[in-house]
């Protein structure tokens, strides 16, 4: 479990993280979303004690990370896959990391196998492709079998195979009771793997909610209807209070009625339906809606009170 309490980081010219409070729970994959420069990486670095918070605290399993007795066994992190010495082999990189908590060669071979780097483990890490470097970073995070994993953009540079692999791996780790905090720019990927979402913008929390609620909140209940009888159907639906637009002949976009209700109404009046498609919002749409709001409000109100109200609204929902 990771607890952030009023966590802030101020640089000389800007506030990177502005009083974030949240609990990242074990047992689920928590997605960490936000535009570039929103403070995701800074927050992750503060959890690991790499950057010192200006105020507030970040606790890992109830303690500051720097006070844990076996740090790598507490938190495994992938923050900067390029942050390895290019002259050292992947195997030796893992060996020196493991040595800090007494994890030796056997486990190193094990994680090399897990991430699929066994065959190139003797090659200098500097010769690795982006995807191989990413796999090495993941191996380093898994090395001491930590209960908490923090991964910044782990799918960057991975091929489809690798993406599917890490998706399964993260799900499995979370199901095994671990805390998994994951950031990614790939919304479709995030939607597949994360159960919970922490969205930040301009250093503040915009949403802290389950993936399902987050998407449902943003859906406006759009149903697309394809029918040769739209001329009869449209006034009928409008009569029940729905909003109906017709972008083209034979096609209606209905808001305010469920697909079931539309189908029943059509059957009742013996109208033909060729398609009846409820449109689910995607994480991408939901995310864009939220961050666009936040940007607009920030323009009007420098104190950005909107972000807290958004969070409240999400929580109430």
């Amino acid at each position, binding site marked *: *479990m990771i*607890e952030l*309490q009023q966590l802030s980081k101020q640089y000389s010219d800007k506030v990177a993280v502005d009083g974030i*409070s*949240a*609990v990242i*729970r*074990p*047992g689920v994959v928590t997605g960490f979303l936000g535009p570039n420069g929103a403070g995701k990486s800074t927050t992750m*670095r503060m959890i690991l*004690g*790499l*950057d*010192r918070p200006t105020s507030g605290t970040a606790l890992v*399993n109830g303690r500051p*990370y*720097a006070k*844990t*007795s*076996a*740090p*790598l*066994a507490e*938190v495994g*992190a992938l*923050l*900067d896959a*390029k*942050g*390895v*010495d*290019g*002259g*050292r*082999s992947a195997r*030796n990189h893992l*060996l*020196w*990391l493991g*040595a*800090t*908590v*007494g994890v030796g060669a*056997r*486990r190193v071979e*094990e994680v090399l196998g897990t991430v699929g780097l066994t065959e190139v483990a003797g090659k200098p890490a500097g010769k690795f492709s982006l995807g191989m470097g990413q796999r090495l970073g993941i191996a*380093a995070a898994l*090395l*001491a*079998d930590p*209960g908490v994993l923090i991964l910044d953009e782990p799918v960057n540079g991975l091929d489809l195979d690798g993406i599917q692999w890490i998706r399964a791996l993260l799900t499995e780790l979370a199901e*095994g*009771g*671990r*805390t998994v905090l994951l950031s990614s720019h790939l919304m479709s990927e995030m939607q597949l793997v994360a159960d919970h979402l922490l969205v930040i913008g301009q250093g503040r*929390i915009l949403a*802290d*909610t*389950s993936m399902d609620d987050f998407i449902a909140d943003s859906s406006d209940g759009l149903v697309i209807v394809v029918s040769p009888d739209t001329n009869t159907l449209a006034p009928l639906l409008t009569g029940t209070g729905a909003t109906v637009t017709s972008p083209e002949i034979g096609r209606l976009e209905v808001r305010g009625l469920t697909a079931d209700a539309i189908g029943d109404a059509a059957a009742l009046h013996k109208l033909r339906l060729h398609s009846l498609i409820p449109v689910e919002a995607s994480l991408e749409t939901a995310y864009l809606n939220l961050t666009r709001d936040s940007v607009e409000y920030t323009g009007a109100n420098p104190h950005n009170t909107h972000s807290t109200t958004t*969070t409240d609204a999400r929580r109430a929902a």
Partner: protein
Amino acid sequence: MTNPTTTVTAPTSRTADIAASRRRTASATTARRQGLGRAIASEWIKIRTLRSTWIGMALVVLVLVGFGGLAAATSTGSVAGPSDGGGGTDPLSVVLSGANFAVLVISVLGCLAGAREYSSRMIAATVAAVPRRWQVVVSKSIVFGAVTAVTAVTGVLGAFWLGMAILAGGDAATVALTDDDTLRELAGMAGYITAIGTFGLGLGILLRSIAGSIGAVVAGVMILPPLAGALLPASWDEILQYLPSSAGAAFTTVQGAGREVLSPGAGAAVLITWVIAALGGAIISISHRDA
């Protein structure tokens, strides 16, 4: 945990317990406490798994032995005995002719050992693995200091034996290892090389820049002292004798900045103070700045 912005409803402590118990049973991994000993073990793996360490250390030995042998060969016949006191050079100085160059090489290696992780950005992984960051500086300096000391002793002894053999072969005066002060002089030189390398390591961590720290050490130890000694009035000699190189000159054959030189004991103490100051500065810097 009652936190205003969370939506937590699950019994988190129980889930955490499950996680902890699974971790204990499910894997062959058993992580142990991270302490200074493990930090040292880790740094030892780091230093020995870089080819540049072996090349660099071999270069130090090569420079010491090579230049010493070369100087001995060229000076055969012009070498004066230690009791001579005339204008000639004593045999020990001749066979240690490579010392200045070796100090230059070890300065570079020390700065690399300190600043290399900042240029590769691997320092983040290091301080995440060893968050009590003073241990990073202490373990790095212990490991680098030990490797350098072994290297310097090897090089100095090699230079001594090769050089003296060449001198003896040329019928020139020699000194024996068992002669007064010979062993002390050789140990002093090895100590000086080790100290300057470790000083560079401290500056490398402090300045976080390979080029910057090499510039600082080379300028401060090798370039500025002779310049200052030559350009500044003699009244400055009192101060110049406390420079690292002058302190080294108190107990080795390297050249000091001014005309005044401390006693060997005081020189060693001053040099050690420089090293401790650099490492102390590095500890303060690494502990307080963001990684």
